[in-house]
């Protein structure tokens, strides 16, 4: 057993630190604090990563990726989270990119991959539908062939940041034969096509992240089909194998927990800092101990992958435990804010409210509830673990 990084890995870590110091500079970090700056900051950040050749750590080098080992990727993630720099927007770099280089044709690769790497396009994911959530294969959005086009009719829902997107990767039904999984195709759709309506869905944090996307006789050229017709389910599933290591969010949770401790030392009740409140201490420690364990669970997965053995059974914990911890930290932060966790700050300044982090805590708590729903809900994750790990 040896948890040391190699000399080369340590040198890489130094390079990452130097890069982050330069790239996550005052300007971007300041901008990130402004409301409504999300897309600008993401695009600016991803272009800096691309300049360095680090936009897509795990893509093969031939497609413009960094070709990192899982350990290098882990080191980068840890360092990135430690300075509070954002993760990349996943839809292009982590989701559709790997599908295109794995299953797309040469034209599609040349057209889309460089633009994904440089954040020239904003992608959104068209999977869930009003009638198809955890049971995704029951999706009904229809694509009918008409000459060189498909004509799309139907609706997608919970489409994250579709209001920014100019492209969608979309699962559509091209056949009703056989099992539901067998009639699904993987299409790339230009969001500026006539017949597409994007309707905002305001979430319980009061913000607009989600959308419903409605398709009415939308024409999509057949050249935008990935791979073969009716094989889309296979391509979509392969996505799950990518980027497994960062799914636990350990590095971000460590940063958030450290911040929580700092806040708890400053927050006072009856003359006593909340960090000295016995029950509050217990709740922090409950989370910290789980997080300390999860950090090593992630390292175990990483060690296994570094040997080329695949992620191992313990990888099934990463999302379940990772999201449980994320939610627990948000819950603690909301409770720490006390009365001020209930305030909707809107346009008022933190000074006018009289408290700095209550509004952030409220929004963070409400939004964190999504973590156990998206990307395979807790219950679906447990079904999968029961089946594939426990053999039930």
């Amino acid at each position: 057993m040896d948890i040391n990084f190699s000399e080369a890995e340590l040198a890489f870590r130094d390079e990452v630190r130097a890069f982050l110091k330069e790239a996550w500079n005052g300007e971007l970090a300041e901008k990130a604090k402004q409301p409504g700056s999300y897309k600008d900051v993401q695009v600016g950040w991803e272009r800096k990563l691309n300049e360095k050749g680090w936009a897509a750590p795990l893509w093969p080098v031939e497609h413009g990726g960094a070709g990192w080992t899982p350990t290098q990727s882990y080191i980068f993630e840890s360092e990135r989270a430690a300075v509070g720099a954002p993760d990349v927007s996943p839809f292009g770099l982590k989701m559709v990119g790997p599908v295109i280089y794995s299953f797309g044709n040469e034209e599609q690769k040349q057209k889309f991959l460089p633009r994904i790497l440089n954040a020239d396009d904003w992608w959104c994911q068209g999977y869930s539908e009003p009638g198809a959530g955890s049971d995704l294969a029951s999706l009904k959005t229809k694509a009918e062939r008409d000459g060189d086009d498909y004509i799309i009719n139907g609706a997608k829902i919970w489409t994250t940041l579709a209001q920014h997107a100019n492209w969608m990767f979309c699962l559509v039904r091209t056949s009703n034969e056989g099992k539901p999984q067998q009639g699904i195709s993987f299409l790339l759709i230009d969001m500026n096509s006539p017949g597409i309506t994007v309707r905002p869905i305001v979430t319980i944090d009061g913000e607009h992240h989600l959308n419903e996307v409605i398709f009415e006789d939308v024409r999509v050229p057949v050249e935008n089909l990935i791979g073969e017709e009716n094989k889309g389910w296979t391509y979509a599933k392969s996505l799950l194998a990518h980027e497994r290591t960062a799914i636990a969010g350990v590095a971000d949770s460590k940063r958030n927990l450290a911040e929580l401790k700092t806040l708890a030392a400053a927050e006072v009740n009856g003359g006593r800092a909340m960090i000295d409140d016995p029950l509050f201490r217990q709740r922090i420690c409950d989370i910290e101990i789980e997080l300390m364990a999860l950090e090593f669970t992630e390292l175990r997965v990483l060690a296994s992958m570094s040997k080329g053995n695949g992620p191992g059974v313990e990888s099934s914990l990463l999302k379940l435990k990772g999201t449980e911890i994320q939610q627990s930290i948000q819950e603690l932060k909301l409770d720490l804010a006390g009365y001020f966790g209930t305030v909707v700050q809107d346009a008022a300044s933190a000074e006018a409210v009289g408290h700095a982090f209550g509004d952030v805590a409220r929004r963070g708590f409400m939004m964190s509830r999504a973590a156990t729903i998206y990307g395979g809900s807790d219950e679906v994750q447990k079904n999968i673990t029961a089946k594939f790990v426990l053999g039930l």
Partner: protein
Amino acid sequence: MNFDFSEEQQMLKDSVARFVQDEYDFEARNKVVANEAGFSQENWQKFAELGWLSIPFSETLGGFGGGATDTMVVMEELGKGLVAEPFIASVLMFGGLLQSTAQSDERDALIGGIIEGSVQGAVAYAEPQSRFEMQDVRCRAEQDGDAYRLSGEKSLVLNAMSADKIIVSARVSGEQSDEQGIALFLVDANAEGLSKTSLRTMDAQVVANIALENVTAIALCGANEGLALLKQMRQQVIVALAAEALGIMEKLNATTLEYCKTRKQFGVAIGSFQALQHRMVDTFMASEQCKSLLYRAVCSIEQGEDVANIEKNVLALKVMVGKAGKLIGGEAIQLHGGMGMTDELDVGHYVRRLLTINAAFGDADYQQQRFAELSLAS
């Protein structure tokens, strides 16, 4: 970075696993614990021949020179077999403490005896009033020439009935809970003035309450060194207990899973019910998380990280093992239904060992408060 075992460690692990599989099934184990001593002297000699009793001792003392990883692999396998022989009490606690005290001919001879299986030892640190605080010591030591005389009471001393020698913590000076003024003493288990009341704990170990009245003793360390030595031993033994607990949790989870795959109700295997599947996923995750913290603690010890870091990792481990042990034990009984309540099934025996491990050296609640002091200094 890797979590692989060395070839030597893998062989050690395999040899313990083979012993458990070939010679220590549940029936054999029941016979062993029915002995008055609570274990089998024959098995103990076998452990000596296989070299297991030498693991934590340095090579200069005739030992294997093993580290935390070696102890871990042995304990995990002993846990799977619910092995009752006093490896922890005699080798890790008594032997471990002896090894950390100053060199003397008697010390080296005793360690040699442990290694060859001829010496049994025990450590008496808890008292009727002390609960989990090792510095709460009423037992007094009065100097008498070169030796000392001990008077007081010690509680639930593991392996005391079989021990040849007992290490006793006693107060040379100071008040009942002072950290200073505690030394460790070696006494003969059959010394005049020492009386033992034999008891059993729920995991079938034989323990004893001990009363001391002017018992002749030799000091093993200075008056202000005893507590630190005890704490160091506690840290090492907690990691070993956690490895044993992990072996037990893995065994219980496997037993429960197998039962749910074969037990039929309503015409189907009960493992097909989602309510049960999700509970088994929870217990699987709990044992994997314990394994991760065990590796974390062991790695930090092996790499010589700073003392506070190691202590924090070990405390986190003890907390999680205590809680996960209750969860996994409780679910194993629940999912076995009525069978889970019967003493003829091994499940309850494993659960009782997990509960004993939780209490050992301070339970999860106690250790979590100590963890908080390290983690949340305001």
